[in-house]
């Protein structure tokens, strides 16, 4: 289960009345600013360039570090290379001792945060001052940065005023320009008195020995100019091969980080420039490995070295937007933080943080280097499960899912057991320890008769041109059989006969996303056997998560388990797997389906994009086309593709996170004035219908399959 201190941090963050509000508003403003900054730029082409140049660098870190050392040394710098974080600290300590350094100023550097360098220098009796405003605030408050770009984003101006008031011994008002002026005054003294300046680097160029520093405040210019000694601590993932590689990174970094075209200051230093007033100047560059080389050799995780630390992934993360960076507990926050912590710290260090990922994939859409953060989080889960074993409760649950007959027997038993609590297809209150599950969200009652039992009685009238297999998935099979029946009606109208292979079982997504790859592989094999025998043109599912599982994940899981033969069989099936909306859209385009003539206006609906449909299947246009074509007036909601907070079992594991994410979604639904909210995923239906049911207000939640089925009629080519 989840560690108690993570629960505590969560409770603390969620109890902070202001945090979610300010992070939420930031998230919205950020998206708009980012979109403006990227206007006129081909983001995909830029990503291609960045991925290529960062991958090339990651493939030869050692050679690039050697070349950098050679060139920077030639330019007059002293370069120290080490794989050991402690050696970095000792190098800086020794330098301070040898040069009689007493006061140090620092510009923002995640690498030194990673090392906890400040604590080591302070233990040596040195006065160390962070000079980035956010870092200074966090340092004075005795905290850690909660965001890679905006370290103090979790603090209000009132809290900053309190922190500064203590520092300067006068009562300061929470007036932001005045507070910034205090920082300017106080830190100016520190800059002028410092004997040594420490910076990081945003890019390090091997072919020229150049360091690139990007800031808005101008502190890196002062830190690198005023003190006679400049030490740059650089993680080797910042290395690029060529000077021409710098520009694409600078094209993406400010745009993705803050929505700026360029930061106020960009400095490129090659060796030590002359010192102030004719004084000598020293430049030391510490190239730090700290397991980055090992990461580069890992086929799954090498891609994480592409990270340019823009933090756009956390800016769009629905969980981060709710709880902020401190809940994540590490130096680097968010999903990418979990991944980096697993390497730079220890695999176990990521155990809690990675569990916070809801797998919505919002980060994958904005990452300028296309890092598959949710995919790597799943990989972490798999490795954690391998190293430390699965949590007991989870293991018991998956043991059940592992055997279809047992699993389905349990569901049928549950259908009987729920009877006292179910009303109108919904369960509004559960007693005792289950009560949390129905707080702010009703649960769907398990269907009295699952789809698999009803299916043989469904009337299907030919003639048919094609056959398709319906892959129901657990939710449609056992909670929402009507969605499955609607799919059958639409396909029948297009001249497609639908069969229901009775041996189909869980798609394996719950197990896979929890890292239980052995269970997911067993599910995949069972489904391969069940579906291969169906002899159909298409395999259709009205659940995007199941569709992704059959189309992408099954083969990948089997491959990861070393089952190449099975993986090939899964590949062959995958080619025929379709999500419901895309298949129906395709049939409409082929004139096999048409819309009932003269159908009255169907009313105003708003559409919620399910995470897997939009980001894994890129099928967000088809359902919109279908809704419009069937006479619906589509009112787009704000953040239509933001996660609803369901995330499979996530809503059960972290109900305290799931609830407010759902609340935000419902607010956006209500704001459209639509009386119906449509979507393509039974999981989202469960979450959103449950939330709307508890909240009241009469907004209907419908799967697109249900909304359109009644309005579809055979097209001219339905029968061939």
């Amino acid at each position, binding site marked *: 289960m989840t560690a108690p201190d993570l629960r505590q941090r969560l409770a603390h963050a969620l109890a902070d009345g202001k945090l979610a509000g300010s992070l939420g508003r930031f998230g919205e403003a950020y998206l708009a600013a980012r979109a403006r900054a990227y206007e006129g730029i081909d983001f995909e082409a830029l990503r291609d360039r960045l991925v290529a140049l960062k991958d090339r660098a990651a493939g030869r870190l050692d050679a690039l570090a050697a070349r950098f050392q050679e060139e920077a040394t030639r330019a007059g710098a002293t370069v120290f290379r080490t794989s050991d974080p402690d050696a970095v600290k000792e190098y800086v300590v020794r330098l301070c001792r040898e040069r009689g350094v007493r006061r140090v100023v620092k510009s923002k550097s995640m690498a030194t945060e990673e090392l906890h360098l400040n604590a080591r220098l302070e233990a040596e009796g040195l006065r160390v001052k962070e000079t980035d405003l956010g870092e200074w605030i966090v340092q004075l408050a005795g905290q850690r940065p909660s965001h890679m770009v*905006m370290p103090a984003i979790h603090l209000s101006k009132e809290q900053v005023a309190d922190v500064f008031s203590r520092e300067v011994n006068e009562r300061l008002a929470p007036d932001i320009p005045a507070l910034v002026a205090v920082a300017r005054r106080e830190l100016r003294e520190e800059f002028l008195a410092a004997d040594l300046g420490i910076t990081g680097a945003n890019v390090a160029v091997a072919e020229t020995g150049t360091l690139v520093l990007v800031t808005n*405040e101008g502190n890196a210019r002062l830190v690198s100019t005023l003190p006679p000694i400049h030490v740059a601590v650089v993680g080797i993932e910042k290395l690029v091969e060529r000077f021409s590689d710098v520009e694409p990174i600078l094209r993406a970094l400010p745009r993705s980080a803050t929505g700026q075209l*360029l930061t106020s200051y*960009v*400095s490129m230093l090659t*060796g030590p420039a002359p010192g102030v007033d004719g004084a000598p100047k020293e430049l030391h560059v510490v190239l730090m490995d700290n397991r980055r080389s090992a990461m580069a050799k890992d086929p799954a995780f090498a891609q994480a070295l592409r990270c340019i630390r823009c933090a756009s992934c956390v800016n769009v993360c629905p969980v981060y937007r709710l709880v902020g960076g401190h809940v994540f507990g590490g130096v680097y926050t968010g999903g990418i933080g979990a991944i980096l912590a697993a390497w730079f710290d220890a695999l176990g260090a990521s155990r809690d943080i990675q569990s916070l990922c809801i797998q919505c994939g919002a980060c994958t859409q904005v990452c300028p280097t296309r890092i598959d953060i949710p995919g790597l989080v799943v990989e972490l889960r798999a490795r954690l499960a391998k190293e430390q074993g699965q949590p007991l409760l989870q293991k018991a649950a998956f043991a059940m899912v592992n055997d279809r007959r047992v699993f389905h027997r349990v569901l049928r038993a549950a259908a009987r057991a729920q009877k006292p609590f179910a009303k109108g297809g919904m369960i509004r209150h559960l007693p005792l320890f289950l009560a949390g599950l129905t707080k702010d969200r009703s649960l769907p009652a398990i269907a009295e008769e699952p789809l698999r039992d009803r299916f043989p009685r469904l009337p299907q009238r030919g003639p048919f041109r094609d056959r398709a297999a319906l892959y129901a998935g657990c939710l449609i099979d056992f909670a929402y059989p009507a969605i499955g029946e609607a799919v059958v009606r639409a396909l029948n109208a297009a001249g497609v006969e639908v069969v229901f292979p009775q041996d189909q079982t869980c798609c394996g997504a719950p197990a896979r996303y929890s890292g239980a790859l052995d269970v997911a592989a067993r599910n995949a094999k069972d489904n391969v056997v069940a579906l291969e025998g169906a002899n159909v043109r298409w395999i259709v599912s009205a659940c995007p998560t199941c569709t992704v599982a059959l189309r992408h994940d099954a083969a990948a899981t089997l491959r990861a388990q070393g089952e190449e033969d099975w993986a090939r069989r899964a590949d062959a099936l995958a080619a025929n797997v379709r999500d419901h909306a895309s298949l129906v859209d395709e049939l409409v385009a082929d004139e096999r389906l048409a819309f009932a003539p003269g159908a009255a206006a169907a009313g105003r609906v708003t559409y919620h994009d399910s995470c897997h449909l939009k980001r894994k299947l890129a099928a967000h246009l088809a359902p919109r086309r279908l809704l419009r074509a069937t006479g619906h007036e589509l009112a787009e909601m704000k953040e239509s593709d933001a996660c609803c907070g369901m995330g499979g079992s996530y809503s059960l594991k972290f109900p305290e996170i799931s609830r407010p994410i759902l609340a935000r979604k419902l607010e956006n639904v209500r704001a459209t004035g639509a009386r119906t909210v449509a979507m393509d995923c039974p999981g989202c239906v469960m979450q959103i219908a449950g939330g709307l049911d508890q909240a009241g207000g009469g907004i209907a939640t419908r799967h697109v399959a249900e909304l359109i089925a009644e309005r579809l009629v055979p097209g001219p080519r339905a029968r061939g």
Partner: protein
Amino acid sequence: MLELFEARAEAVSAEVLHAPCAAAAVEVVLAVLERERVEDAPGARAVWCEGPICLGLLDPGSLARRVPGLSFDVTRAHAVESRVGVSEFEWALATTGTIAQDASDPRLRLVSTLTETHVALVRASALLPDLECLLARIDPRRVRYLACVTGPSRTADIERVLTIGVHGPRKLVIVLVDDAAEARA
């Protein structure tokens, strides 16, 4: 391209002034010094780092008499006591409203980091489309400290409220010297 540069520089809170020639630019700078109430008092002085644009146009002695508190002797001590710093930039980038220089000479950084107002002279003929063009023509082994400046110093670290002038200048005044017109004349 000049209009784009000006629009982009102003969008990031820089002020752009025009001068038809280098001699006129000197007068524009002097007007800014007057506007900023430069005087011979600690914290109210000005430092001017001479460069090729104004080469031969500046007579430090007579200018210092005209503007008490103005010094051409750029030292750390003078920069600390100055309200205004003046320097020349070699390049301007249209799409981002950026000015850029080889700042290997630390005096160039003193006048543009420690002062409240930084006045930057740049030739209109030095305008390039973007950073990519600039980096393509630079060898960092020769340009040891390339400084790109886009607007004044800024932060959004407290509640994401944009605030101008944290550690560097609160004002950036760009004086565009229209040397193309100068050449035509």
